[in-house]
Each structure stands twice: as structure tokens, then as C-alpha cells.
């Protein structure tokens, strides 16, 4: 449909859905059924709704969401793999007036950057952290990550992850909830409308905790990687509900806000 035809077709209609202002017009390059796009959008909507687009700085991980800077209409920093929490801390300490969020995958947050993630949480740094847990390394080719489920097949656990070799899946949110430093830790998912709504609320709450100076907020979001899971998007959504959630239950884990 041409622009003209579209305009004619929709004349007199109220616009009820649009791209968030905090996203630009670039199309996401995520795979079909991947949840990054939904999560990116939820973050952008929240930034819009809180009116903080002008003074928000995002820090992106290495991985499929390395391109946050291409899609977000805000200042973005692209640090080394695993260092996102520490870099966000550096930005926030230098400029406490900025809203700073860290966007990290499970390899970034729970493996190579565990030291940095843990200490940012324990210091109660006033930053908002999004931990996108899709139970493997997506971009490099579907290798096992620390959050990979037991018996889950990946390109580095061809017979499935065995606890005797690699230990059980790491539960970062529960682990960090044992600390006195963090303010809010929650685990969410985006595989259906209800969960998307809840995730959006959690994202908003996590940002508000920062704008109110209340400290460290972590939103873990269970995310699908249909390509590396070898499933279609619908099956991938079902897997989260039926398998992943059993290991990583949804809901608030810590709330001192």
C-alpha cells in the first residue's frame, strides 16, 4: 500500500499505536520470534512515558543486542563483553543526573561479567539493569551459557548439559537477592500479552527506582531464541512457559523499594 493510499484509507481514524519516540525508524535485525525486539520496545515505551529520553544513557552488551545504538534514539555506549554493569556504574558515578541502564545477556551478565554484575548489585549502584536470559549464547552460534538448563542441547553440549560436567544452571537473580545492596530484583517473561504487561510494569518500576535515587534494580527477562533452540516461535514461547519457568520462576524476588 502506498503512503497516499494508506493516508486515504485511514483518514478520520484515531492513531492508537505508534513507534515509541525513543526508538528511531531503523528496523530491528533480530530473528523471527526473538524476544529482544519486544523487550527493546518495552524499554523505549517506558523511557517515553517517564519523559526521560533526553537524559538517558544506555549501555549495550556484546551479542545480538550489540546494535542497541542503531535502534534507540538515545545516547548509547557499547562496552566490552561482560563489562556493561561496570561501565554503567562509571557513567552513573560521573553523572548521577543521567538515567543509566545496562542491557545484558546471560553470557555477559552471568558468565564473563559475573564479578562486575555482582558488585554493581552489592554496591547498590543507582542503575537499572536488564538481564535478558535466553539460556545460551545466541550470536556466536548457540553455545551453552551458565543459565542453560540441564539436558538442554547446545552446540557445546551436544548431548545436553550435564551437572557433573558444567554444574547446574546459575540463578543470578536469586543469588543477587541474597545481598543487602540491591533494591529490586524481579524475573519476568514476554511470551504472552499478560506477561508483556507485567514486564512493562517491572521495567517502569525499575526505572522509577533509579529516578527516585533508590538504588539498584534488576529485571531479568526470560527470552526466546527460536533459531538456536531449533524451534518455531510458538514452540519457543511454550518452552519458556513449560520448561524454563520451572527452573527460573517468574515474579518479584526482592523488593526493598
Amino acid at each position, binding site marked *: 500500500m502506498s503512503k497516499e493510499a494508506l493516508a486515504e484509507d485511514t483518514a478520520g481514524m484515531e492513531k492508537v499505536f505508534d513507534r515509541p519516540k525513543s526508538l528511531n525508524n531503523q528496523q530491528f535485525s533480530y530473528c523471527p520470534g526473538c524476544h529482544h525486539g519486544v523487550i527493546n520496545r518495552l524499554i523505549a515505551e517506558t523511557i517515553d512515558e517517564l519523559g526521560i529520553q533526553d537524559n538517558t544513557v544506555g*549501555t549495550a552488551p556484546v551479542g545480538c543486542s550489540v546494535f542497541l545504538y542503531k535502534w534507540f534514539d538515545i545516547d548509547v555506549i557499547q562496552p566490552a563483553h561482560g563489562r556493561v554493569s561496570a561501565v554503567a556504574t562509571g557513567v552513573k558515578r560521573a553523572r548521577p543526573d543521567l538515567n543509566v541502564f545496562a542491557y545484558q545477556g546471560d553470557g555477559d551478565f552471568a558468565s564473563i561479567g559475573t564479578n*562486575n554484575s555482582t558488585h554493581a548489585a552489592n554496591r547498590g549502584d543507582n542503575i537499572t539493569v536488564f538481564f535478558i536470559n535466553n539460556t545460551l549464547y545466541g550470536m556466536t552460534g548457540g553455545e551453552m551459557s551458565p543459565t542453560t538448563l540441564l539436558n538442554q542441547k547446545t552446540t557445546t553440549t551436544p548431548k545436553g548439559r550435564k551437572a557433573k560436567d558444567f554444574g547446574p544452571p546459575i540463578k543470578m537473580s536469586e543469588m543477587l537477592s541474597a545481598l543487602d545492596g540491591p533494591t529490586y530484583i524481579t524475573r519476568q517473561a514476554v511470551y504472552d500479552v499478560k506477561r508483556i504487561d507485567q514486564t512493562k510494569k517491572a521495567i517502569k518500576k525499575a526505572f522509577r527506582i533509579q529516578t527516585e535515587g533508590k538504588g539498584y534494580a534488576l529485571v531479568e527477562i526470560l527470552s526466546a531464541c527460536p533459531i538456536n533452540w531449533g524451534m518455531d516461535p510458538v514452540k519457543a514461547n511454550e518452552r519458556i512457559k513449560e520448561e524454563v519457568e520451572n527452573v527460573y520462576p517468574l515474579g518479584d524476588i526482592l523488593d526493598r523499594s
Partner: protein
Amino acid sequence: MGEKKLMRGNEAIAEAAIRAGCRNYFAYPITPQAELLQWMANHMPEVENGTFLQAESEVGAISMVYGAASTGERTMTSSSSPGISLKQEGISYLAGSELPSVIVNIMRGGPGLGNIQPAQGDYFQSTKGGGHGDYQLIVLAPSTVPEAAELTFESFDLADKYRIPVMVLADGMIGQMMEPVELPSPIDPSNLPDKPWATTGTNGRDPNVIRSFALGAENLKSINLDLQEKYEKIRKREIRFEEIGVEDPDILLVAFGTVARIARTARRLGKKEGIDIGIFRPITLWPFPDERLAELSESLDTVLTVEMNAGQMVEDVRLSVKSRAQTPFYGEQGGVVPTPSEILEEVKHHV
């Protein structure tokens, strides 16, 4: 300039950084630079917007530098050799992202845990790229405490001017010893030129992005060529060195940092015995003063390099001097500091 103060090198470096407008300092404790961290812990909170944070690790500290430097504020970290090795990831990213920042290395003995005595074994690491990829740092090598303060102060200007990480490369002796220092007057960082590239929130402008990432070979090639062009500019403009008695000496001694000041005493001893020792001291280890050294070597028989390592800077000396003169090397290692008389003995083998 203010009154003279008796200060440790580590303290003088820290205070000079604050006076240069450094407002963010992140580090991890390690000997022999602990006093630097301690000075910052005590004094950074006293200045407006001053941030001191003891990081969870060296890697954490350099990553915090990356974040704070992204906002355009003057930012520093410091460590000693093993800690600097850990920071190499971050240093490569700082260079790739062109983030102005200052890194202080108070060198100690290596490899591995080595010891905490003064050494110069990190010359290669500092000047030839300790991390991955094609990049350079400006490397400044003070040989006295007052010079350590002065170079630290100036390193922030250099870092801003070229959007480059600058390394102040000293050793445990300069870090630990006390000398009288006249500190520069503090500047007000709010008067520094704007950094339009910094990630400070868009506030109506187009978004800024800090990254060292570029997909596509041609894309990265072009970015890397721009970096090389910048390095060439620095090579042309920023070379620094000191010369003492280089007009027709019996031998020219090339040394940096601590060794250069010991060489001064050797020169004095030599004079008493009728040996004229000239001293050439590179202050910028990168860019290395190759042209001047080449020029001097035209009329010399011997250019002796003395270092507290197994022979690192001597490679740059040989590249500069080529076959114009003999280029022997004398080094001490493991934290052993050569004495003036030992240097003089070595000189006697060559004159």
C-alpha cells in the same frame, strides 16, 4: 604554582590529577601504588563532583573509566604491572572508542607476580600495544617526583586534545620516594572545552554513540586508518625528550624514568675520571624520539641503552640509530636497581 611540598610520587601524581580537573578515579589496591589510591580516597570526595570508587577488580576499574570517560569528564585509574595486564582489555577499548583517559602504571618486577620492587619491564606492553588490535597510547615516563606530577597534570590535556588514553609510566621507586614538589594550580573542569561527542543524554541533539565496534571490513579499515592518521599527528607534534651533555660526548647513554636519574649520577662520577657521558632521556616513550636520536648518533661511536629490564627500549634505540653507532645494552632485572658506579663500569667497557 604553589609552595614546595615534600611528597611521595604516588601522592604527587594523585594530587596533580585532581588539580588537572580529574573528577573520576576508579582503582584496585596493589603495591607499590597503594598510596595513590589512598590519596584519592581521602581527597577526591573533597572536590566538587569528585568520584572515588574502589572497584571490584582491575577489569572493573578500567570499565568504570570507560563509562565515566564516555561522559566527557576527566577520568583516571592507576595500578602496577600485574594490574595493568588485567586492564589491557579496557585499554584497547578506550583506544578503539577514542576515549580520553589517564592510566598510571607504577611498574614493579615481573613476569607473573614478580615482586614489588621497581622495574621497567612494561615498556613493550605500554608502547607496543598491550591489548589487541592496532592502537597506541601516549606514554609519558617521568624520572622525578616533580616531573611525575607535571606529566600527570599535562596528560589530561593530551588525552582530551587527541581523544586518546595516556599512560603515565613510572616505577615503584618514583611512586614510593619523596621529593619536593611544586604542584600546579588547580583548574576548574567546568571551564574546559565542550566534548560534543560525549554521551551525556541527547537533550535535543542527535544521539551520540561510544563504541569500538564496526561491522564490515571496509568500515573498520576506514576507522583504523583515521586512528593511524591521528597517531601520525601525535608523532609529529608531541615527542619529548631531555638531553644532557650530548654535544660530542665519549658515549651517549639512553635511559628513561628512574634509570635516567641514576645515569645523571653516573655522569658526575664519569667526569671525575675523565669520561664524558652524555644522556638522552626519552620522556615520551611513545611517540619515541627516533629522529633526534638518529641525528645525534651520526657523530657518536656508542649509544648505550640502560634499563631495568632485559632489553626493551633498546629495540627502539636500535631502530633509530641503525648502523650509525654501536648500540650495546646494559640492564638490571627483578627489581634490582643499577647503581651509578655499576653504570660507570659498564660505560668503561665501551669507551
